[in-house]
Structure formats: C-alpha cells, structure tokens
C-alpha cells in the first residue's frame, strides 16, 4: 500500500444547512470511487476534522455518479450567523477533506484530474 491524498482521487464541494455541513466527494472515476467508498468512513471523517465536527457523521453512497455524500452534524460552530467562524457556511470544509490520507495499492496509477 502507498499513501495519497484524497485530492489525487476526487473533487469535493461543501454546503450547509444550519449547523450541518455536507461535503460531496466526486471521484474522478470508478476505480477511485471504489477505493474511497471503503476508506471514507464516518469515523475517519470525524477524526480528520480534528474537533471542527462535534456531532455524528454519515456517509452516503452515490454509485450513479461515483460520489460520496458526507453529512456532518454540529459541524459549523452553530451555523450561520450564530457561529464564531469566519467561514460561516462551511464552504471551505470540502477543501479540508481533500487533505485526507488514502491508501492505494502499490503501483496504483493515479488518473489525472478530468
């Protein structure tokens, strides 16, 4: 196994509803999706955000578009405009996701971002 960052495998975009942050991860292709599906677990995500996310994390699979939908509760410090955070609506949360470490098989050929 070797390690890459999630940004080598997928794009991501985030949004908010109240204090809930969501991050959609769009894998570049089916192979990348299969790898991400196994490793992007609620536990991994919660640990990755190091205290920014205080509540439950759910991960939904969207096989049709090789994507994962991550929903994180109590994740925006109270949500807009109640939060003390600069990024009230968590638009940058997706960019943090891109720095998650992912294991890929040795010699795995990374596809360039489409």
């Amino acid at each position: 196994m070797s390690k890459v960052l999630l940004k080598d495998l997928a794009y991501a975009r985030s949004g908010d509803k109240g204090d809930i942050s969501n991050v959609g991860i769009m894998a570049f292709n089916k192979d990348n999706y299969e790898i991400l599906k196994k490793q992007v677990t609620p536990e991994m995500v919660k640990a990755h955000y190091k205290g920014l996310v205080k509540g439950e994390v759910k991960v939904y699979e969207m096989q049709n578009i090789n994507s994962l939908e991550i929903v994180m509760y109590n994740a925006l410090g109270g949500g807009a405009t109640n939060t003390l955070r600069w990024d009230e609506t968590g638009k940058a949360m997706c960019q943090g996701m891109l720095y998650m470490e992912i294991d890929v098989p040795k010699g795995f050929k990374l596809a360039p971002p489409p």
Partner: protein
Amino acid sequence: MKKIVLGAGSGYAPSNPMQAVKLIEEGNVDYLGFDQLAELTMSIMAINKSRDPTQGYVSGHIIDGMKLILPRAYERGIKMITNGGGVNCEEAANQVIKIAKESGLTKLKVAIVRGDDVLGRLASCQEKGWKFRNLDTGEENIDRIKDNIVAANAYIGSDAIIGALEAGADVVIAGRCSDNALFVAPIMYEFGWKFEEKYTSLIGAAVTIGHVIECADFNCGFGSVVWEKVPKPWDIGYPLAEVYEDGTAIIGKAPGTGGLVNEWNIKAQLVYEVHDPNNYLMPDGIADMTAVHVEDLGNDRVRLTNMTGKPRPDTLKVQIGYRVGYLAETLTIVPAPKALTKARRVEEFGWRRLADRGLKRGDVEVQVDFIGVNSLLKSVVPIPDEDNINEIGVRVAAKAKTAREAQALAAAFSDASPVGTGFSAPHRPRAVIALWPTLIPREDVPVDFIMKEA
C-alpha cells in the same frame, strides 16, 4: 415531445440581472425562476420590516433587477417566478407594478403567494400538542427561545404558484417558498402533472431538475471544482434546463456567455446540500439523487435521465429565526519576521487579559483565528513554517448578550500587538440571529395567492 425551457435568473442575492437578460434574449426560455433567499434572509428582512413597513423584500432584485428584466421578459411572454418577495410580497408586487407602468407595460398580471409566514400559527399548533422539536439538536420544544423569535417561515411548495400560473400570472412573487418550487411549479403546470401517485416519479424528476439549476451560475462554473478550466470566468452565464414531458432534461446555459456546463459542475450540484441523497426532501416531493444518470453531451450541455422520487411529505420544514446576542470582530495584521510567533503572542496576551478580568476560556464565546494560517480549517490542513509567512491576520470574534460586552471581549486582543502590527477601523458589532429548523404539519400551512394587475 413537449418541451419547456426554464432559466435560473438568480441563485442567491445579490445576483447579476444582466445574466438574466442574456437568458431572456439568447436562451429562448419560457420561464425564469429567481432564488433570492438564503436560510437567514427571512429573519433579517423581518427585522428590517419591523423598523420600516415598506421594507422586507429583496429590493436589489425587485427594483433594480426588474427594471432591466421585466420589460424584456414581458415583450417575449416569458413568465417569472421569484421568492424575492421575502416577508413583504405585497410591497414587492407594488414595486413591480410601478416598474411595469413606468415601462409602459399593460395588463401585466402579478400574483402574490401567501401562507409561508407561520409565526402566528406557532401558538395554536403548540396548543394541539405540536412541539417544534429542533431537527439539528433534538431539543424538544421552543419554550427556551420563544421570547426572542423574530420570524418563522415554512418552506412551502408549488401549490399556490401553480394556481397563480393557471390564473394567468405573468409574474409570481413568493416569500419563503422552497427554491426548488420556483422550477417545479412551471414544470408541473405546463405538463399537467398533479400530486397523484402516477406522477410521483415525474415530480421526483422535477425536484431534481429544480435542485440542479436553483444555484444559478454554480452550474456554469462559478465556484467550480474545475475552476481553472472555466472559460471567461468574468462573464459566467446563468443556466437553463430544457425539460421534456418524459421527465428528462438537458442542462445548458445562455449562448455566448462565459463559463462551463459539464458533468463535474452538474455532479457538484447533485451532491450539494442534499444530505440523504436517497431521500432529498422537498415540499413537492422526495427526489432520489442516487438514480439519476448524468451524460455530458459537450458544448455546455449535460443530459439528466432516470430521475425518480417518492410522494411529498406530510410535514413542511420551518425555519424559526431568533436573536441570540451580538457578535464583535476585530482584525489586526502582524508582519514577518516571526509572524506566527507574533500572532501567538497576541492571542496569549488576549486570553491573559480576559483571565485578569476573571473570564476563563470556557466561559466566554471567543474565537481567535490566524488568517493566512488556519482561519478556515484550523489544524485540518498543515500549518506552514513561519519563515514562509509574510503576514498573518489575527481575527478575533466574540459573542455576548450585548454589543458592548462582545466588543469588550474582542478588544482585549487588539491592543496587545507587537511591533509593526497593521490596524484598521473596527467593525461595529452586529446582532446575531440563530436558526431553529423544525417541522410543521402541512395541513397547518394553508397557502393561496392574490392577483394584481398593472
């Protein structure tokens, strides 16, 4: 096969009316939907209206935008649906009619959708035993916040908009209808789809299509995951959806505009704020985002097929806005050399000063961010070596019951600055509104419309 073309004339406020004009002039659209509301907007407008009864709608859109848009749409018979009426659809309609008269337009029918304001219904629902449990926190009832509530609005669906279109409305002005309904309503109206079992999948498709285009230019390359590949990003167009009677659609954009409609920008919409993608809950139906097929046709066209859904829920979402105090912010900028060390000293001194006043870290709502280092994502991303940092913005945010208290908390950090620190004028503290998301039985939210004519 019958087809209609919907354009998204805005996806948030403020929007660019010239892009809506391009959809009118070049996009061959039949309808334009204008989403103007974020989650908090209704509360902010309710406060504005309480100070001045002629306020409470999105004036930049209703007045400045419509001066450009209305005559051009009228000339081509394009119907428009907006939620920019906010908490004062009546006054918004008056303004639109005034613009129509000034522009020499006659027999323009303007409908006002009513029913989303449920502030006056909270008490009667509670008497029946409905508790308005907080969907985010699970808190059981609204007793704790009830004295601080500024607005309560239900996300209503398409019913009254469809009614208004059937009655011949040229412009439909709504308040807190779902963004989605701005597009679902014309689709259902044009194709004759009803809230009946046999139309469930088709309405699921309409909900999906509405969800995709409601963010306007995000479909076309604004805020794009492929931002480096977006052509002419200074002139990103607004999207349109060619919707077919079989429940399929092609997403495109106004010809000649900048931007890019491709599979990545559309997928980014399909994952955006949907939460459970198997059950994307909207007032008009529950869409299944895990079924849709996305096919990039090239030339800024993406086809959506295989969309489906479930019948609409018996409850509607309600956002209750309530006051929670004031937020003060300060920003000072510390320069290299040793920018990170300087920033950390500012933070340390601030906390020491608060401690001297008997205020401990866990007892006050204060956050210190180092802009350029960790203000967006704290330690989720690696912290750079300070030799590589030219300057750091030390931003302090503090929340308290009064503006004065909030200001005093933040100020503890701003005058402890090391040599070379750059200051700017402090911002005024602002009132903080928090949101309480909850549900209300659909039967307790009757909706209707009234029609005015220019």
